[in-house]
């Protein structure tokens, strides 16, 4: 961890100026108030602190976070939209000693890639999928996804998402948590300091479960997207905490770690 310290710098400012070791640059293209860089930073810090930097392979989908593929100092496969869990499966099966995580948005994972993440979880693949959920297609400019919460305004739901017209959001983390191949699922957020600390803790737990070979792990992180939400950058945290976290309760969705199950459901004979 590179930390800038000195007289006149508050603790918060010191944290803000610290650059994770696994980030090659602090130059970026993200909008003011975006939550994705905070989530990326937490992932990189956890990998670094668990000493996994030289065995980690990231599989990155398509969204604003795609910008990280040039910035993060771990091996990266930039894959097709929605397909990250499948690519991660191929990687992990061929390199079982590596640590594999995906980086996907809600458009990537819940719209185009719902089948991939569910089946990868059901197979119990020893990978960690990270969902950056802001409830919009941020990269295209703020359009409705399968995770957009009811009432949320997007460019394709200008009056707010109506169940009668747009249907209901899909809580993918809850679906994944119900599958037997899943070892650990948590939903976290980055809208304020305590939330960030919790998000880092659950990311660490997910990677530890992967290292233990316990099964599939998923961490959903609610990330601010003031641009896609039509709110000011300074209002993003409040919007995330009330609107998104209001619809997607934070916490660990798998209580006790499930040991890798064997056995058979089929009748003998």
């Amino acid at each position, binding site marked *: 961890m590179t930390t800038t310290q000195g007289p006149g710098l508050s603790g918060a400012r010191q944290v803000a100026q610290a650059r994770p*070791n*696994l980030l*090659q*640059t602090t*130059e970026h293209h993200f909008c003011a108030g975006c939550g994705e860089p905070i989530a990326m930073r937490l992932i990189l810090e956890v*990998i*670094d602190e668990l000493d*996994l*930097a*030289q*065995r*980690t*392979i990231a*599989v990155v989908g398509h969204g604003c976070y795609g910008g990280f*593929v*040039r*910035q*993060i*100092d*771990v*091996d*990266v*496969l*930039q*894959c*097709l939209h929605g*397909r990250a869990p*499948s*690519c*991660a*499966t*191929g*990687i992990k*099966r*061929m*390199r079982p000693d*590596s*640590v594999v995580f995906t980086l996907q948005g809600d458009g990537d994972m819940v719209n185009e890639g719902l*089948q*991939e993440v569910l*089946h990868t979880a059901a*197979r119990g693949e020893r990978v960690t999928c990270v969902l950056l959920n802001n409830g919009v297609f941020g990269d295209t400019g703020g359009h409705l996804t399968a995770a957009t919460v009811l009432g949320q305004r997007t460019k394709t739901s200008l009056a707010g998402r109506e169940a009668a017209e747009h249907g209901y959001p899909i809580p993918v983390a809850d679906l994944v948590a119900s599958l037997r191949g899943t070892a650990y699922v948590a939903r976290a957020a980055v809208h304020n300091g305590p939330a960030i600390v919790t998000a880092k803790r659950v990311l660490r737990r997910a990677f530890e479960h992967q290292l233990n070979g316990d099964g599939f792990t998923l961490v959903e992180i609610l990330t601010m997207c003031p641009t896609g939400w039509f709110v000011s950058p300074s209002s993003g945290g409040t919007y995330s905490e009330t609107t998104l976290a209001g619809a997607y309760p934070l916490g660990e969705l798998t209580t006790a770690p499930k040991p890798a199950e064997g056995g058979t459901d089929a009748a003998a004979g």
Partner: protein
Amino acid sequence: MITTDGSRAGQREPAGPELYSGSEVIARSAIMAGCRFFAGYPMSPFTELLESFSKLMTGPGRVCVDAESEIEGANMVIGAAATGARAATGSCGQGIALMQEAIAESALNQTPIVVFNMARGQQDYFQATRGGGWGDYRTITLAPKDVFEAGEHTQLLFHLADKYRAPVLLYGDHFIAHTEVSIRLEAREFGPLHPKDWALDGALGGTGRSRQIWTWNSGKVLSPGPGPDEHWRRIGAKFEAIAAAEQRWESAHEGADTMIVSFGTAAVFVERVVAELRAEGHSVGWFRPITLWPFPAAALERAAAGASRVLVFEVNAGQMVEDVRLALPDRSRIASIGGVSFDDSGLRYGTLMDVPEIRARVVGALSRERIR
């Protein structure tokens, strides 16, 4: 350490000939070539190939995954190939249609993958040779005429995929998937390959030289790549080089007055028709593209230089005939004598794939004056 042939030690082929289905010959040949990862979704007549891989991909380091669909199967294979492992998937044309996105991705991000199309006939020629993905890419496509060639081509395809870091495709059919033959499989050598120093293993994380595989090839901030403009120019140039270097074909009786062009299993039937007609005194020869892409255009032009007729027999509405027209300077010589032909199962060829039927079409064409 990247190994592509680590599996060879584990599984030995019997010394004498064995009776295997074409599907098992392909799977065994793939494993002999070092294939360590297979993912597929059942669909006849590809199904038996999936069964064979599922049965044979045992032992440490070998994996066969029942994918949730062809889309995921192909993307799992991209992931496996990204680590440097030899990896393959397959289906028939309908399932390969779902893989077009992944095949284009593989061409543009340069992950070598092998795709087996156990096609339901010959209607997938355009799909194989033109492709339906985005971007400037081509797919090396080998079309074996029988099970023996299918086994040889399988090993060659893994080599070509690695040599060019590109997707490659085997164009088979139900005859090749289901026919059982007595065969002695042998590992083939194709010469050394460049080490896979691009493969992802995580080892360079945190050094500023961590790796990246991406269709844009922009690289990292500290180790920039060429970026999409230059990367895609290089990809285009690579496929031009492949087109020049990798054309394969077979022909007989070049210089005959009539040349018949056909590919895959259909060519075996055409060979028989030509033998019959030659025995009766007709000046007839045949030409078989083995690589559908790159199409052996110059070889066909030479083979047909003295022919007054070039007949194209393919079991579809007329697809390869377009490549024949592109290859030959005098298009008025060219006539299609194939057509659509299926049976009610939808999996097999109908009445057209029959020596007397093909012979009748050739004789009919011979009796017609060439129209200028």
